[in-house]
């Protein structure tokens, strides 16, 4: 699956409180959350972002709280993939679980500027910076996690497993 879009670039330690401030967590409606995504550090992000765009960031992206509202808000903004040097643990799980693709690739982050156009192949992990004509390959996921991603998230993955085991699930 190939993705194409524009880069919105950020630094290190972009935390869940700035991705979606807790004052908006009196709802878990993804569209409503998306309206406030990143507003405390980038007020224009929501107006600027287009479907397919990428967030590219340095280390420890998504640090802080366990709120799954953070990847939900990013996904509902239309962001197709987050590329970072490293991700915080809970954010990584949450993103895999809800089907927001993440790629870890330090070289691509270093070689990419705000506003660049990228083309990303999620299957191979190839990141092509069209603006600068450079190519990178991201770290691959363990096979177990690919299973969750292929199923479209943890709920569908578990539902299928429960069905196989003849437990619950329809």
């Amino acid at each position, binding site marked *: 699956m190939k993705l194409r879009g524009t880069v919105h670039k950020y630094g290190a330690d972009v935390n869940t*409180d700035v991705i979606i401030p*807790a004052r908006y967590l009196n709802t878990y409606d993804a569209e409503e959350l998306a309206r406030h995504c990143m507003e*405390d550090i980038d007020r224009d992000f929501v107006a600027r972002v287009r479907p397919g765009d990428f967030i590219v960031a340095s280390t420890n992206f998504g640090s802080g709280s*366990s709120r799954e509202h953070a990847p939900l808000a990013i996904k509902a903004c239309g962001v197709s993939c987050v590329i970072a040097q490293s991700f915080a643990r809970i954010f990584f799980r949450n993103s895999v679980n809800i089907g927001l693709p993440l790629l870890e690739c330090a070289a691509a982050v270093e070689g990419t500027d705000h506003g660049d156009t990228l083309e990303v192949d999620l299957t191979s992990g190839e990141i092509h910076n069209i603006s600068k004509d450079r190519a990178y390959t991201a770290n691959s996921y363990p096979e177990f996690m690919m299973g969750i991603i292929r199923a479209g998230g*943890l*709920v569908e993955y578990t539902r299928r497993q*429960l069905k196989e085991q003849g437990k619950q699930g329809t």
Partner: protein
Amino acid sequence: MGTIAEQILASHSDSQSLKPGDLINVRVDVVLSNDITAPPAIAEMKKLGVTRVFDPSKVVMLPDHFCPAKDIKSAEQAKQMRDFAQEQGLVYFEVGRLGIEHILLPEQGLVLPGQVVVGGDSHTCTYGALGAFATGMGQTDIAVAMATGEIWMKVPPTIKLSYHGALPLWISGKDLILWTIGDIGVDGALYCAMEFGGEAIEELPMSGRFTMANMAIEAGAKAGIFCVDGKTRQYVKEHGDRPYTEFLPQADAEYWKTIEYDVSKLEPQIAFPHLPSNTRPVSQATHIELEQVVIGSCTNGRLEDLRVAAALLKGKQVHPSLRCIVVPGSQRVYLDALREGLIETFVLAGAAVSTPTCGPCCGGHMGILAAGERCLSTTNRNFVGRMGSPQAEVYLASPAVAAASAICGRIASPQEVTQ
């Protein structure tokens, strides 16, 4: 075999021995969620086609973040959780009987050493103070754990942190953990288990250990764990007194990293905006003027924390330039503080005392900051916008520093108000 984390995870999985990086299915002893994370977790569980939780006695829900409900939407979320908890017969606590989750669960004896606890809240790692493996997860993971009693985990590498020397006056668990995060950074323990030990830790009361384990997540850790000792056993005996298993690190335990600290000359620590790792000793912060001080939260809302703050505030006044807000961490903490006269001390000093709530810590309610305001708080995060306006500043510190600062109207060392 192995570190504390590896042994607990092995005892809760089908594997006899584990090594870091192994992907395993773990049986959970407690699944926790709150008014923010329970409603979406319930919705996800329904999508699984599962109608009953795996064991209602092991699923805990309580509204602590926006409680008592701050607006209609928060009330609706709390109601969704309450209805589900009643229908399923879960362990549930209502306003008037509750506390901040990570203070309440150990206090009620709901968490024991050797257990695996997953919670829809990143500070679930607090229970590592009891020698449990406890970690925060998102609502989809919580949904699966509630439905099946199991969740997948990657076995984390363990960092061993040893604290040597005698604890100086006014140095608390908060200072130790802020100092540690300042040293290793907000991703210094990313994906790892932190195992805390050393003679300074043996001296530390349980309240200080809860504070340290609570902030393991602020270094990116999956868990922060303490060895069970006499203090742990005494705490468990006084809170529930149920049987449990102790896991101690084995001689063959392999650590990813070992870090040694000498605490004997440590000064109280302040985390400057906007990261918990941006720490400086209090002597370099006394020029910072404040509009608000908050004493409370899952990090520092325990009775011992309130005792320290009240001892400093007794017979003194909160500086007229600031607001001081005290939030007891649970109804029991509130009642004990009342009986000990601490609440009277706070009120006479000119501090506001709140019902137990996460409230101001996450910028929910009960003490939101305006643009340009500066707050010193005993909470755990000082990110941009964390306690209100993105133009506000939050400084993190211990209850002792918070009380001294409330008296001085600026960041102050406890020594300044006791001399």
